[in-house]
């Protein structure tokens, strides 16, 4: 199936998200790499961004006025790689050799690894400060573009997230949007029991952000909110995307074992069936 064209059609976006989920389950199985639950969790957000929101041209990945998307939760790299590949940034055979020796695609994205990867991530708490710098640069260059950073809830443990969260409203970065993939889990426990994350939306609001507390699998809502930037208020936007870790595959949903577990061939087949893929 050719998914290289952008679309705002919600059923088409849902089909794309399902295809991405199938692909990342396969990649986890073949390459025996973890973080599958985290990658499934944000598939709808990434789909909304790359197909319906971001102003981009896969043939011109370095265009100065493109919108930027930073996958700050770099451990969901398979979701980003698959989206970039399906959208036409790089050919399929590269994706098929994910994480093999010599492949440009490691478990966390490297700088310039493939066209479309805006920043190397994998160490948490780096993406939002970089996004703030990109958003400020838009103003200095007088080149309008929007910047989106996708964070995990566990990532919000990092102090650097909150340093950037304080700076963005001070700089009135209305072209910046932080999306928190709030699946209520981090690597080894419930995110609200590990550190006192809740009330997460109120925290971002208190820091001066325009906050939307939404279903992170409702693609239509995600598209609408992400596309509202900039709304003229000068406030950066935080979308608290309430998600389910492992979303789309019933036996992975909200089961944190899938932060590290690798699916068997039978589990891949079962996942494909549930996702409506052949």
């Amino acid at each position: 199936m050719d998914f290289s064209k952008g679309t705002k059609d919600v059923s088409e976006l849902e089909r794309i998200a399902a295809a991405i989920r199938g692909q990342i389950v396969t990649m986890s199985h073949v390459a025996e790499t973890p973080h599958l639950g985290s990658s499934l969790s944000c598939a709808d957000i990434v789909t909304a961004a790359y197909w319906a929101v971001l102003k981009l041209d896969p043939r011109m990945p370095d265009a100065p006025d493109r919108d930027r998307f930073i996958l700050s939760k770099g451990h969901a790299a398979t979701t980003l790689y698959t989206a970039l590949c399906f959208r036409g940034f790089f050919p399929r055979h590269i994706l098929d050799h994910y994480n093999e020796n010599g492949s440009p695609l490691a478990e966390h994205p490297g700088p310039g690894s493939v066209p479309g990867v805006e920043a190397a991530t994998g160490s948490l708490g780096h993406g939002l400060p970089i996004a703030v710098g990109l958003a400020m640069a838009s103003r200095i260059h007088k080149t309008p573009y929007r910047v989106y950073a996708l964070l995990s809830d566990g990532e919000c443990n990092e102090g650097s997230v909150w340093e950037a969260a304080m700076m963005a409203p001070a700089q009135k970065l209305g072209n910046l949007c932080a999306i928190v993939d709030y699946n209520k889990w981090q690597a080894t426990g419930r995110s609200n029991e590990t550190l006192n994350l809740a009330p997460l939306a109120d925290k971002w609001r208190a820091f001066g952000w325009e906050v939307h507390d939404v279903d992170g699998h409702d693609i239509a809502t995600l598209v609408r909110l992400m596309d509202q930037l900039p709304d003229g208020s000068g406030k950066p936007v935080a979308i608290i995307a309430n998600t389910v870790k492992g979303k789309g595959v019933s036996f992975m949903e909200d089961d944190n074992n899938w932060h590290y577990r690798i699916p068997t061939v039978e589990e891949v087949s079962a996942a494909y069936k549930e996702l409506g893929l052949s």
Partner: protein
Amino acid sequence: MRNAFASEITALAQHNPNVVLLSGDIGNRLFDKFKEAAAERFYNVGVAEQNMIGVAAGMAMTGLRPITYTITSFTTARCLEQIRVDVCYHNLPVTIVGVGSGLGYASLGVTHHSCEDVACLGALPNMTVLAPGDAFETRAALRAAVAHDGPVYIRLGKKGEPKVHSEVPTNFKIGKGLILQEGDAVCIISSGTVLPVAMEAGKRLTEAGLPARVVSLHTVKPMDEVLLAECSARYAVIATIEEHSILGGVAARVSQWMTANQVTDTRLLTFATADHFMKTAGEQDYAREHYGITADAIFEQVRAAATRKKLQRTA
């Protein structure tokens, strides 16, 4: 050095629309002229060094040339991982400037000492490390850093250091040491703000019948290997001087180079800070004395080593 930095960065910003200055909430009034010249390119990013480095990296990704500026220990150790990942891994043209490097802020206490920064940042791939010796070298280093297509770290002193040059050295080049005084008996390799100490030691050695070459090794990484080869071949005694730990600074790097290149007939003396924190208060000169980084110590030890070498060779 601090004032030279502020003046030079203002001049650079006037000529280069991509120069952006990020200050970590220091330099009150220091950047007034910069703000007059380029208000839209000055940002006080607050006491948040990790964010400062990430923001600088984001800016550099778009072609800007950000310079981050705060106290050395805070802009190096505090945000080392941001420097490693955001700046060096992406190989971005961010210039990180630390003020009060080494023992420059000795009297502020160990939290404000920075004797490990060269070791830490010098170990990062893509990073260039500059340690100018006076205000004129500071200007030259800054010009070179802004023109360099990659990460640069500049370790500065504070303000009011004695000037060694009389003007900005026109032959300043990243990776090329400057020979400030020629002499054929011994060689002193100085890096950073201790340059006046090295010059004083060189003068006294020369007066004592041991004509000393004095080098300002303003670039710690990449090392000037051509100069090291020439010095090693020519001198029986080489001394390195720096306000930095014996671990991972100029002494360590010169020693490593000499070992790798099988330099066996040259005595290497190192004047650096020892592997311990100070436990007493004191000004920079007191701290230098504590660690044995003084013209007296250099003069005595270099002279003694040169005399021993001479005796060995005569025998």
